[in-house]
């Protein structure tokens, strides 16, 4: 018995070595499996990689003021433009040197706030995060008519995924938080190159502007605006007051005694993270419980541009982490629609009583959108 046991253990222990010694397979393989199709597929029309992966087709290199985007800008002397993408609405090559990059990104939602994003950039540069005091002391520079936080970091660039190691790099950027959106302008590359192009970076940032909206026509109860992407028009209630143009908004209205209640429309390219993510971003702003897919599917619908879009309501303490706005006992009405590859956000937020009084008008406003 004992000798049998010993032999058994020895036999088992030899097996791994035997298995490991087997080859990994051939590097060239003949395909063996086939399938008969009744008919060959039709030759495809030319499809780019961006379209194959369901991303917005990169725009052709654009001159300043591309008609496809809500911005206009000037390309600094000596800089070249690269194809834009869903994440890089403006994509430039500083000094025409491919070692550097400069781009503009707009993301819906606060993404954790300006401070969190500054520290995210610092992490990419292998730097420790800033304290609250250090963050508050960061300089401000104008961007799109607002004050944006300006940063300038030297360090080892380790990339967005932490898989790079580029010493002696410099990152400069501006981060602007407006309601419901984050605007990021960033330039990155070898330190000596970025130092040389810093002046032109500031020129580019100063040249960035939101394209002019169409002027109102007709009665005060009817306000028209043209988003370059969708050429949106709408009919606003008479007691809504149109506010001055804001970055990343097609239109903004205020209402109520103090004008504290606000309704605005934003349009972004692509699906911006999807319906569930955006609805739950609003839930987070209101301190409300998030909704799962089934709950979102059962939400009431309003018709926006001829298609049903979910109408969501949240009550609670409204906090906008990007600009610090707070409304105790707040209420939010929101609609997320998609049309023509664009995501349309229509949001009304304010004190609960005022929002409740505006609900029917909000729904009528949403359904009045046309293009």
């Amino acid at each position, binding site marked *: 018995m004992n000798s049998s046991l010993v032999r058994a253990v020895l036999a088992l222990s030899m097996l791994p070595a035997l298995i490991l010694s087997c080859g990994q397979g051939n590097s060239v393989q003949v395909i063996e499996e086939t399938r*008969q199709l009744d008919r060959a597929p039709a030759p495809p029309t030319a499809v780019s990689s961006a379209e194959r992966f369901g991303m917005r087709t990169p725009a052709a290199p654009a001159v300043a003021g591309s008609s496809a985007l809500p911005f206009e800008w000037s390309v600094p002397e000596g800089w070249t433009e690269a194809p834009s993408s869903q994440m890089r609405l403006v994509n430039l090559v500083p000094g025409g040197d491919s070692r550097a990059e400069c781009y503009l990104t707009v993301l819906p939602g606060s993404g954790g706030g300006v401070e969190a994003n500054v520290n995210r950039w610092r992490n990419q540069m292998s730097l420790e995060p800033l304290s609250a005091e250090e963050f508050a002391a960061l300089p401000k520079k104008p961007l799109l008519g607002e004050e944006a936080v300006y940063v300038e970091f030297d360090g080892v660039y380790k990339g967005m995924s932490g898989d790079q190691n580029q010493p002696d790099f410099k990152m400069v950027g501006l981060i602007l938080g407006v309601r419901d959106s984050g605007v990021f302008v960033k330039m990155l590359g070898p330190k000596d190159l970025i130092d040389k192009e810093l002046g032109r970076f500031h020129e580019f940032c100063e040249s960035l502007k939101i394209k002019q909206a169409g002027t109102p026509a007709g009665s005060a109860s009817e306000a028209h605006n043209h988003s370059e992407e969708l050429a949106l028009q709408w009919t606003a209630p008479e007691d809504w007051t149109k506010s001055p143009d804001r970055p990343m908004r097609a239109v903004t209205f205020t209402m109520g005694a103090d004008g504290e209640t606000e309704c605005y429309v934003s349009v972004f390219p692509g699906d911006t993270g999807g319906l569930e993510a955006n609805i739950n971003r609003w839930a987070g702003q209101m301190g409300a419980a998030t909704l799962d897919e089934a709950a979102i599917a059962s939400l009431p619908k309003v018709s926006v541009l001829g298609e049903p879009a979910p109408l969501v309501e949240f009550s609670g303490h409204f906090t906008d982490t990007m600009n610090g706005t707070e409304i105790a006992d707040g209420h939010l009405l929101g609609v997320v629609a998609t049309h023509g590859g664009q995501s349309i956000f229509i949001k009304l937020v304010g004190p609960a009583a005022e929002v409740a009084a505006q609900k029917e008008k909000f729904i009528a406003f949403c359904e009045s959108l046309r293009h």
Partner: protein
Amino acid sequence: MSKAIRILIDVLGSYGFACIIFIFMLILTFLGTIEQTSQGLFDVQRKYFESLFVVHWAFDVVPIPLPGVYLLLVLFCINLLIGGVVRMRKGKNTFGNLIVHLGMLLMILGGGIKYWFAVDGHMTLAENESSSEFESYFLWEITLTPAGGEGPAVQYIIPNEEFAYLSPDNAKTFTHPQLPFDLSIEGYQRNAQPLPVGPVIANSVRAVDGFFLQPQDLMKEAEQNVAGAYAVVRPKSGGDAQEAILWGFQQHPAAFAVDGATWLVDFHKKRWALPFAITLDKFTHELHPGTQMARMFMSDVTKTENGVEQAIKITMNEPLRHEGYTFYQASWQPADPQRGIPVRSTLAVVKDPADRIPLYSCIIVTLGLTVHFCLKLGKHLRREGKRLEAKRALA
């Protein structure tokens, strides 16, 4: 029979060998259960239970080579056959044990048949949609299809097992006498996302048409991984090589022009054709009141085979069984009005030739245990009877 073979048979059929196998199985079951909390069921199953050999890293530092459960089951099968059937003393007293051992062998055989021959996947349909194929949760395939032309065409298929073991650093070339090119699969990633390159990123990644494959962390639920790879087509006539990125969620195949013809290279979950079609007529689902938990969901379907239609109801506990395929009501996908996607029912589809073997095996084992119990009980009662008689006689 030579002495060496006799010794080998002694070892393989010994009680001690069986004990060693059980100890290893216990260890592997424990390790696999612990690792499943972080790695997910699919990967742990492949690592511990479907392998001949596994290396467990104790404290992430010390490598411990162990036999895999697949190997242990093969050895146990041999052990049970030699020691539990062939060499077992045959008689009234061991008849029940023999039946139990045969039942256990049938169970292991059923497991082997399932492992080697079963396929499983899912079919997801919206109301009024039909399909005559189902696709895998985990396995991918690469297909090469000639585009254009009249009449039927031959599609070449590279199955999952031919490329899924590749790492990002190695490549494999596929060829066929009827293909005008060779296809190399390079830089394979189990979970990846194509991203546009920028001027800085272009210096350090492999870019094709302005995109590169960004590796992603593996998901614990293996079916959520979306694989990707670089495909390089090299014409046999000597033309320039062409490249494209293949990605599991690509919305269009990659197209290559070779010798004046267009070839489509697609990358998607492995599909199996069914000998019949299923049409979802109505999907019903109810939630427990006040919750988002499903109380019941059910699909009313029509099975169409050779022009004959049959209405069938599929619920969670009442699957459809036909032609060796079993359709279970597995889950459902909520509607996404923004994308024009309606509610969809997901049916799990399994084709398992050994579907009923576990049932038969359990019946046989139960029968064997019952026989053994009855025989032992009878023997005990007879012995007790004799003892009592002897006691009375003495008294």
